[in-house]
């Protein structure tokens, strides 16, 4: 189980590195799909079918929107020629990444092991199915215990849509 997750995570990391270094924007967007669909399998392995359904549809929609954005654009990216200066930059990047990883390891040291049973906080939500009578516990949490968060989410989504329309629409409604 943990081994499968490690394999999928390594695949996702390789896909993201290729996606960021591709010389063509279309192949960059498509290999970005590796990350999203790998995430779907990871969610299924982690026993989160709700998230897997949402993620697989959202990933397809994201890819379609991205391809619609880069269609008919000049998508070749000039390759950087190798200079000694760039090797220094790569070394600095690697050192910074190592430092970040060390800090992260220290910071997450207080967390329990992967898969450990720490249900002190979650037990009320699991018993809560008797209060909400919703067989799907995730829906019960989203729409009953924490419905206020869902209201905030709806507001953020609405604001993002208004923002997209404001940026993309040049002509007003009255002009045409």
């Amino acid at each position, binding site marked *: 189980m*943990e081994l499968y*997750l*490690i394999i999928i995570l390594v695949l*996702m*990391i390789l896909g*993201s*590195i290729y*996606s*960021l270094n591709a010389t063509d*924007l279309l192949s*960059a*967007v498509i290999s*970005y799909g590796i*990350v999203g669909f790998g995430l779907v399998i*990871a*969610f299924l392995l*982690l*026993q*989160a*079918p709700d*998230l897997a359904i*949402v993620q697989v549809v*959202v990933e397809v929609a*994201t890819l379609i*929107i*991205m391809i619609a*954005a880069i269609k008919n*654009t*000049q998508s070749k990216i000039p390759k950087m020629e190798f200079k000694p200066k760039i090797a220094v*930059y790569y070394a600095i990047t690697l050192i910074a*990444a190592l430092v970040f*990883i060390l800090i*992260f*390891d220290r910071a*997450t040291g207080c*967390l329990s092991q*992967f*898969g450990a*049973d*720490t*249900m002190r*906080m*979650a037990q009320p939500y*699991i018993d809560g199915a008797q209060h909400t009578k919703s*067989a*799907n*516990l*995730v829906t*019960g*949490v*989203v729409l009953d215990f924490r419905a206020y*968060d869902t209201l905030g*989410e709806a507001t953020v*989504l609405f604001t*993002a*849509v208004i*923002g*997209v329309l404001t*940026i*993309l629409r040049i002509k007003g409604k009255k002009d045409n």
Partner: protein
Amino acid sequence: MIIYILCFILFLVGLYGVVSKRNLIKIIIGIAIMEYSINLFLIMIGYIEGGTAPIITKGFEHAKFVDPLPQAMILTSIVIGLATTALLLAVAIRLYQKYGTFDINKIKDLKG
């Protein structure tokens, strides 16, 4: 613990993309990768060895469930992520129409 660190390496790859790439689309891809890695990390914290998906069916009323709270929070986060990515792409499309390029260095030169 290696699994948490791999997840963080995915985050760092996204950060590398945001900081070092000059193409706007690649910066947006980097931001999306960072978001995905955070989602995965929070779900991993909620996982319990041998737990089943948090859905009550007949005969499994008292089974061991994984934590439903992070799943509920990430559910909203994924949809918001799509909307924010679309907003960033809208800005990128308008910049391309104005300057004819996605390269942020050239966009900086053409200021004014």
